[in-house]
């Protein structure tokens, strides 16, 4: 060792941890960790909860979130790692290696570190070998996320081999490794500890594991979005569904349609520039997250679209900002696209073109399609003239909506130059099983359901008709609920316990927790989303047959992990319950 003198200095000037007599004890029977004051002589004691949680439990159990779905084996003895002595061996093509290097940087950024001058003594060097079997760098719904991780200690060396079918699988393996490295401090040394031997194979149950963020009701800064993506990566969520526009604002800057932000952004600081988008897309991809952009329409539009007349294109929208709003929409400000104006499809074509340039092809695009308010269209002379001759019945307006959807799809395909993109829409009158086939071919459309319960006839009917669906159970996974109207807040247990309708049904692509933005902005969005989104992450990755109670201690650990990575999270129990595992659920 060449650090002998440095060690001496460090001992002379600083204690690496507060010596306070507290320790954590593992109860071998139930795998619970509890804080104790005077450790008994018989039982092994641990300097921190994280160390105890790493060691406690069966060899087939790991304190990892979300819980792996494949084989787990481990030897529950600690080995020490020095953060300065972790090296990586990268395999594959140059582009693969470049990507893996970015993931390694992510690993280094998120590795727990001691901030003092303490150094690690008596460590084993750690070598991590990363191997992606495929050189395919695209991240889509079909990306294989499987990985295997083998950690082996022998001859005073620790070797980790992470193999994935894709780089994104390898990334998940890196994430799991991060979770297996926890700070270990004593009086004169600050190391990371891990287990002596570990074997994991793992892959998700669902391919689409998403968080929806709404940056239109209230703007979210690029930094806030990044922090959410970072937490998604830590929880192996893989889709950021970005509801970027709505009737309130249009913050997405489009190079060929500068008027959209000029008329629609809240102010010049509340805009996502193409550079911001590029940065976010890359940031997300390194973290295994693809961005599913939603430009909602024909409803939920308004601000941003007011420039049509001035540009000689006519009214792009109707009812925009109209008052009294209750007559024209369900939430102010009002607005719907004007399907009577053929120019709308030219503008949409430009919009789609810009978006396909800014966002890489992930094979999916979200067109919204929810909550069309017929009285709005019904109030527009232009639209009534357009449908002249037809009765102003719901069917007529549904046909009009279907026509709009069809023309939008054609505009989209023309803009991207193929007809391969899956279009996602929310459930609506148009997706009613009785009419959906008339308007939305199942080969092109994925339906995002937001009905109250997973076990709903609508879902069954859509599946029977052959549609692929994404589930966003409104009364379990709507993170905005509980703060308006008669809605209730869903705590992490409810979010966790939202068992998927049928895990074997191939047509269920996955699910999303939705953070609608009326009452959240940079001030509170992180703690509103987290740690609850992590509960959904395990439901979607692992889909365990057990409920939240069985995951409690591991979930609390994951919350601490998110905090240590700089995320703002909500507390879910008094800290006493974290320090005395299992003792709060049994009381009363």
């Amino acid at each position, binding site marked *: 060792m060449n650090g002998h003198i440095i060690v001496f200095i460090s001992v002379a000037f600083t204690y690496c941890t*507060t010596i*306070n007599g*507290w320790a954590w004890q593992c109860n071998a029977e139930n795998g619970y960790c509890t804080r104790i*004051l005077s450790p008994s002589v018989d039982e092994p004691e641990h300097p921190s909860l994280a160390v105890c949680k790493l060691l406690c439990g069966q060899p087939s159990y790991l304190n990892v979130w979300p819980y792996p779905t494949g084989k787990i084996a481990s030897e529950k003895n600690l080995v020490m790692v020095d953060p300065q002595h972790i090296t990586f061996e990268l395999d594959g093509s140059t582009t693969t290696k470049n990507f893996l290097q970015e993931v390694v940087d992510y690993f280094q950024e998120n590795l727990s570190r001691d901030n003092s001058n303490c150094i690690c003594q008596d460590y084993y060097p750690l070598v991590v070998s990363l191997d992606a079997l495929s050189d395919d760098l695209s991240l889509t719904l079909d990306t294989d996320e499987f990985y295997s991780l083998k950690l082996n200690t022998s001859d005073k060396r620790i070797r980790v081999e992470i193999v994935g079918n894709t780089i994104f699988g390898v990334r998940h393996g890196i994430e799991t490794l991060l979770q297996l490295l926890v700070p270990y401090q004593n009086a004169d040394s600050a190391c990371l500890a891990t287990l002596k031997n570990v074997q994991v194979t793992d892959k998700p149950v669902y391919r689409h594991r998403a968080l929806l963020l709404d940056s*239109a*009701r*209230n703007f979210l800064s690029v930094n806030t979005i990044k922090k959410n993506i970072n937490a998604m990566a830590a929880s192996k969520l893989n889709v950021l569904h970005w509801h970027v526009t709505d*009737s*309130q*604002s249009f913050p997405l800057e489009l190079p060929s349609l500068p008027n959209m932000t*000029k*008329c629609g*952004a*809240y*102010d*010049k*600081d509340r805009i996502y520039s193409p550079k911001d988008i590029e940065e976010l897309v890359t940031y997300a991809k390194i973290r295994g997250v693809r961005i599913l952009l939603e430009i909602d329409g024909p409803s939920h539009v308004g601000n941003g679209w007011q420039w049509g007349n001035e540009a000689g294109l006519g009214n792009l929208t109707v009812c925009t900002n109209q*008052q009294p*709003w209750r007559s024209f929409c369900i939430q*102010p400000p009002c607005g719907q696209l004007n399907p009577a104006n053929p120019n709308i499809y030219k503008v949409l074509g430009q919009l789609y073109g810009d978006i396909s340039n800014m966002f890489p092809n992930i094979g999916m695009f979200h067109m919204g399609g929810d909550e069309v308010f017929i009285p709005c269209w019904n109030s527009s002379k232009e639209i009534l003239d357009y449908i002249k001759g037809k009765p102003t019945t719901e069917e007529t307006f549904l046909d009009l909506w279907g026509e709009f959807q069809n023309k939008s799809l054609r505009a989209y395909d023309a803009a991207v130059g193929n007809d391969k993109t899956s279009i996602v829409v929310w459930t609506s009158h148009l997706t009613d099983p009785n009419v959906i086939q008339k308007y939305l071919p199942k080969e092109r459309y994925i339906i995002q359901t937001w009905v109250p319960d997973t076990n709903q006839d609508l879902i069954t009917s859509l599946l029977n008709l052959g549609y692929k669906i994404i589930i966003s159970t409104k009364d379990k996974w709507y993170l905005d609920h*509980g*703060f*308006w109207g*008669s809605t*209730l*807040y*869903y*705590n992490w*247990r*409810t979010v966790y*316990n939202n068992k998927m309708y049928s895990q074997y049904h191939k047509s269920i692509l996955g699910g999303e927790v939705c953070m609608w*933005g*009326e*009452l*959240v*902005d940079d*001030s*509170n969005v*992180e*703690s509103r989303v987290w740690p609850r989104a992590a509960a959904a992450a395990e439901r979607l990755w692992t889909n365990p047959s057990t*409920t*939240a109670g069985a995951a*409690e201690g591991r979930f609390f650990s994951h919350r601490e992990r998110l*905090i240590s990575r700089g995320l*703002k*999270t*909500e*507390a*879910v*129990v*008094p*800290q*006493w*319950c974290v*320090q005395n595992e299992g*003792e*709060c*659920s049994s*009381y*009363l």
Partner: protein
Amino acid sequence: MRYEVKRDRILSIMRPVALFLLLTLFVYVVYAADVTELLTGSIHFIDNQSGDSEISSTTHTCEDKCSPKETDTNEISNIISLKTCIMLCGDLPIWPKPMNINVKDKDVSTFSKNRIGIKLNAPVNVRGDLKKATDIFMKNLPVSDEFWIDEDDSVLFNIYINVIDIDNVLRLSTNEEYALSVKKVEDHIDVELSAPTYFGARNGLETLIQLIWSDTTSNKLHIIHDVEIKDKPKFAHRGVMVDTARNYFYIEQLRKVVDGMAATKLNVLHLHLTDASSFPVVLPRNTLFAKYGAYDPEMVYSPENVKDLVEYARIRGIRVVLEIDGPSHVPPALNRAVEDLVVCGEDAVFNGHLNPENNKTFLVLEDIYKDLLDLGTDDEMFHIGGDEVNLTCWQQTVSNSPKQQLHHKAKHSTAQANMMKIWINFTNRMLDTVISAKQGDVPQHIVIWSSDLTDRYISQLDYKNVVVVQYWFGSINPIFANGNKVILSTVGRWYLDCGFGSWKSTNSRDNGVCDPYTTWHTFYKYRPWVDEFPTHKDQVLGGEACLWSEEVGADSLETRIWPRAAALAERLWSDPDVFNRTDVYVRLDIHRERLTMRGIRSEAIWPRWCSQNPWKC
């Protein structure tokens, strides 16, 4: 109406700048008798930069309710910013709404931060406090410090502050009123702020700063004049309670709570310092309590921390009530320091109770109370907790207790009555203990939480004129009937923690104990002294918004409190008769932005579009 902008009336004076603290004799002008709000006015000056954060050239007029409106003019002077429009078009967006506002004219002048002169006329010992308060005022002005120096083309801004009273300790009885006048005199702005006490003057400064705004890209400050405000709170006790025991908050975070309260004229920070789950306060006479009771050796409040916080709060017009709860809500960990002090907590930590049979119990309590009295400065009010005693605990542990089953609500259960006696006696001894801790001096107010005891046996408590009930649940009429004063913290109305589901159940369907979430509307609309017990209004000292912290941690402390505690603040300060929805929304949103600018995270109350289109949502 439209505002006529007259550039020829731009006020510009070229004078050297001086910020001075001179003792000036100054007599305050009598208030205008006619208190009405004028709805017309004119803008005398618009800054010569674009002054707008909006992207296109938009202007705002009263007739469009300050919604952004495209303008074809290139005349910057014809553009009226959103903030300016809001200041001119509705009620003045002051929070909490003052008791009396007399807007004599709605003119706007601009000035620079470096042209503010402050003159103090106050007793010597108060002057130091006033200096601190004006420093805070200067720091909170809505303009960044980097633009401190700029061209001297704006008006001189004189603030004359007059305080009479020599006393600078904040008590329930402190007179917090103030009179503020802002007017243009020739070529400068004169602000006259008079108050009987330092705390009244501080309130006046918070109002004054709310009459000042800046247009985003400009470093110029704007003020509306001529305005006269005569203001005082309706209730003397206007608080926020924070539970530091279920989850711990660092002292810096508590200071930020104080900052938000100061901006909102709330005047009591009640710290529920300890509970069954932790004991984070280091008490000099019993340091082991924190050693064994804190979550972590770093998660403690040292005596210096508490004293600093108390002084930090005093300067901001806030007194700190330090509560160590008992006989229930006591951590069993204290037994490591004092043997057999706590019973029932070993198996179920949240059931820890002080042991009524240990003769050390009251000696320990006296030491605790002495420490708290040393740490605080408020010698008029003392909180002893007293909520949620579980008599079954004492029944099982106290020798000679009746062993029949306790029927919680049974009126004629002898066992119940006997156990109640133990509780009543215990509480009376706690009251005696406070007095012995004060060397026989009976404090003006000793506060206990409402409970079964106050529901039915309050008449059996000693010191009737002293006992104040902090009412959260139960029967309030017996308390009134007994003549006690109350502090209102009604659950479902003024609880900040409700609505996040049950934290301890493994059954996720279980609601939390007080779901659903209480919105700011509910906080605002609660005025039981009008709607429920008008005849007992005089027994209401005020109220507190309570934040129990089972499901709130450091990251959400601020957003959980704000802006809802501000809704309570206005209810307790001026208690407006009507809930004028659109006015309240707009003013509260502006106050939210004010808090945000001061670095206090505050929850959104609507989409930002509604902030930019006031009175349209």
